């Protein structure tokens, strides 16, 4: 009797194993990504806040319009810089393109306000190349647009370069028989990677709209700073912060709509990880000029980082750093690593479901994209609304709240990265395991995860780096004595010694670089076949 019941139970669990595991991941997506927005919107529906005081003056409207304009301008400049660079780095024979490409892309791994700080040490009034005139340009809307565009252009460059390597070589080869390289690029390759360009544009807009650090540092009024001021600054008025962020919901939905319309599943078709063994497009007489462009871009990315190290080296910045840094690096690394692990675990399950087209996967994918494109102030205020309760102090009052925030905002990294990686492998590996008698969990842990170990490591690393570079989400709810390094540097920047701030920023760059190098090394050693 007991054996029969046991068999029936086993049978039942096996029948629903896949759905149960996907449901657990869906709960993770719901808690981290949907709950903050859902609770905020439900609260508004039940008892609408008095938005009149927050929106009665013209200032919030001006700030919202200014932030939208700023994000649009940053996106445009990033595309103008990033698309040609993506082509040059990804498909041509420009000299030193690999090294230059890596140098150009490294700002993606850093909080943009660190780059602004670096540019300040170059073009600020007392900077290495600074004057009144350069300082005036830097501390203006144009300066903010340029700094952010240089920070986010590598997002475009890397997505375009990777996508170009995923294009079927025969498309390009057929075109080369009848057209010159430039026409092949413009007429064949760029249209083929249009979904990747659209994805990069949406990502850059979302990041630029949410950016808090650069506009505040460069004294440019922007919407996120207005929300931040009401939550922790001189204009402390949390009720108004709630009212202020609500109109941002349509922005998030619009970005999600654009992503669904122009990217969606097509991103899996073009964002290939295949190594390209075909010949690179020969630039001929344009090679010298193109190579110069690539290296200028690399220089522009490297200059602010070098300036930080240079400034830190003056005036004992590194020597004094220990007295100022506290536990900030530890806080950032621990919360980032835990969040990256959660993101990777949920990403494995949901990404696998997306790659294999399982029921419900598209909805989960849309929800994680929604959380990413939601302006950080809206997501941050939602997180505060959900978790800032006496019963939830063990979460809200500790580093756990940083994990919650990071996991919500950057869940898309795990899901999309692993969906792309898994969709490139044959489903027959899993089908063979199923036919051999393996249930879903055994297939997931015994086949899918080990076969994609390199992809998992890459997703974890990418998630960690994005958590480490986050300022705009964490600054809204970091716990007492639990600020990560980005927040520590940002708060010190206003009144701390300049060399120490530069040294802290340099240390953050070094920690991020170390994480990237160690992670890449482990990933290259950890995967077989």
């Amino acid at each position, binding site marked *: 009797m007991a054996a029969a019941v046991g068999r029936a139970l086993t049978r039942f669990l096996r029948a629903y194993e896949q759905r149960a595991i996907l449901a657990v991941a869906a709960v993770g997506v719901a808690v981290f990504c949907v709950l903050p927005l859902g609770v905020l919107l439900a609260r508004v529906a039940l008892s609408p806040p008095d938005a009149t005081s927050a929106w009665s003056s013209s200032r919030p409207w001006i700030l919202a319009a200014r932030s939208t304009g700023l994000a649009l301008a940053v996106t445009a400049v990033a595309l103008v810089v990033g698309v040609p660079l993506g082509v040059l780095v990804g498909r041509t024979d420009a000299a030193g393109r690999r090294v230059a490409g890596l140098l150009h892309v490294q700002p993606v791994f850093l909080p943009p306000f660190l780059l602004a700080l670096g540019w300040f040490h170059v073009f600020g009034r007392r900077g290495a190349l600074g004057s009144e005139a350069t300082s005036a340009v830097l501390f203006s809307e144009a300066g903010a647009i340029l700094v952010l565009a240089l920070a986010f252009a590598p997002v475009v460059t890397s997505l375009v370069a990777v996508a170009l390597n995923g294009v079927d070589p025969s498309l390009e080869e057929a075109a080369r028989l009848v057209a010159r390289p430039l026409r092949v690029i413009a007429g064949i390759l760029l249209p083929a990677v249009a979904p990747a360009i659209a994805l990069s544009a949406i990502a850059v807009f979302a990041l630029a709209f949410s950016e808090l650090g650069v506009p505040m540092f460069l004294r440019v009024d922007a919407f996120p700073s207005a929300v931040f001021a009401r939550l922790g600054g001189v204009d402390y008025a949390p009720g108004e912060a709630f009212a202020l962020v609500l109109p941002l919901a349509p922005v998030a939905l619009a970005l999600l709509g654009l992503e669904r319309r122009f990217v969606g599943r097509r991103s899996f078709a073009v964002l290939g990880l295949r190594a390209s063994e075909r010949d690179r497009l020969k630039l001929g007489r344009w090679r010298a000029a193109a190579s110069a462009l690539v290296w200028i871009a690399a220089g522009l990315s490297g200059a602010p980082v070098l300036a930080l190290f240079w400034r830190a080296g003056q005036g004992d910045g590194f020597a004094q750093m220990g007295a100022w840094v506290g536990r900030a690096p530890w806080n950032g690394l621990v919360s980032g690593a835990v969040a990256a692990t959660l993101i990777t675990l949920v990403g494995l399950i949901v990404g696998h479901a997306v790659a294999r087209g399982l029921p419900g996967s598209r909805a989960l994918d849309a929800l994680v994209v929604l959380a990413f494109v939601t302006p950080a102030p809206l997501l941050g205020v939602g997180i505060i609304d959900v978790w800032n309760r006496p019963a939830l102090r063990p979460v809200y009052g500790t580093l756990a709240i940083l994990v919650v925030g990071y996991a919500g905002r950057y869940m898309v990294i795990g899901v999309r990265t692993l969906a792309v990686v898994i969709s490139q492998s044959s489903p*027959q590996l899993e089908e063979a395991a*199923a036919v051999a008698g*393996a249930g879903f969990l055994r297939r997931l842990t015994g086949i899918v995860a080990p076969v994609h*170990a390199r992809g998992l490591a890459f997703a974890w690393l990418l998630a960690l780096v994005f958590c480490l570079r986050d300022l705009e989400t964490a600054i809204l709810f970091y716990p007492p004595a639990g600020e990560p390094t980005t927040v520590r540097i940002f708060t010190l920047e206003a009144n701390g010694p300049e060399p120490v701030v530069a040294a802290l920023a340099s240390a953050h760059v070094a920690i991020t670089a170390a994480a990237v190098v160690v992670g890449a090394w482990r990933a290259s050693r950890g995967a077989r*076949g």
Partner: protein
Amino acid sequence: MRDAIALDSVSLALRGQPVLDSVSLVVAPGETVALLGPSGSGKTSLLRIVLGLVAPLSGAVSLDGLVVSREGRVLLPPEERALAVVFQDLALWPHLTVAGNLGFGLAARGVPGTERRDRTEAMLRRVGLQGSEKRFPGELSGGQRQRVAIARALVHEPHAVLLDEPLSNVDVDLRRDLLELFAELFRERKATVVFVTHDLREASAIAGRVAILEAGRVVQVGSVGELSRRPATPFVQALIDDRALPAREILTGDSGRPQQVSE
């Protein structure tokens, strides 16, 4: 005796396009049936329905008398059907050793470690891969990978083995050797086999009966001799005519010499 595999009026459509149209076919226990047809005729889809990887739009699939799929539903999931498969690209798990590839399914079915090791070693010895337990698929030659794939399929003594054009990517000499090995293995285990191919020579070398699929329909089932004598459609006639060898001859053995089919 109950049929090992029975398909009853199975139909399938993918993305609105009909793929299989009311296919009925039975495979007796211990019998080898070749499923033959041109690309796009629905051979692989039919195999996937039997495996439980796809549900039929209509009709039913039975294994040993038990209905396992019916009318858009997979009633018994793939992992509980006690079947084995060799895919066209073999789908060897690249992160597992040869022994790991064979042992994975045994472990999933709860076979204890010692027995798992013994059965794996015996199976590898049988296919001529003794000593290769610790090698990875990436370190093997094409022929060795084929042997691992068939060993993996047979090691857990499945109810039936389904092979989806497993020899389409190997050269003629190797194909002949592997066909002989497959035939021996199936014969000594009295295995029930469905062998998908688009090559009539391959089909005649390994199968007692051949089912011809054309545009999603089974147009004729019979021995190679019957197909030759009474081709049911112009397509079957063309298949017979296109063969490099006469219909009643097959390739066997090391010499590769033609041998008479026993009907």
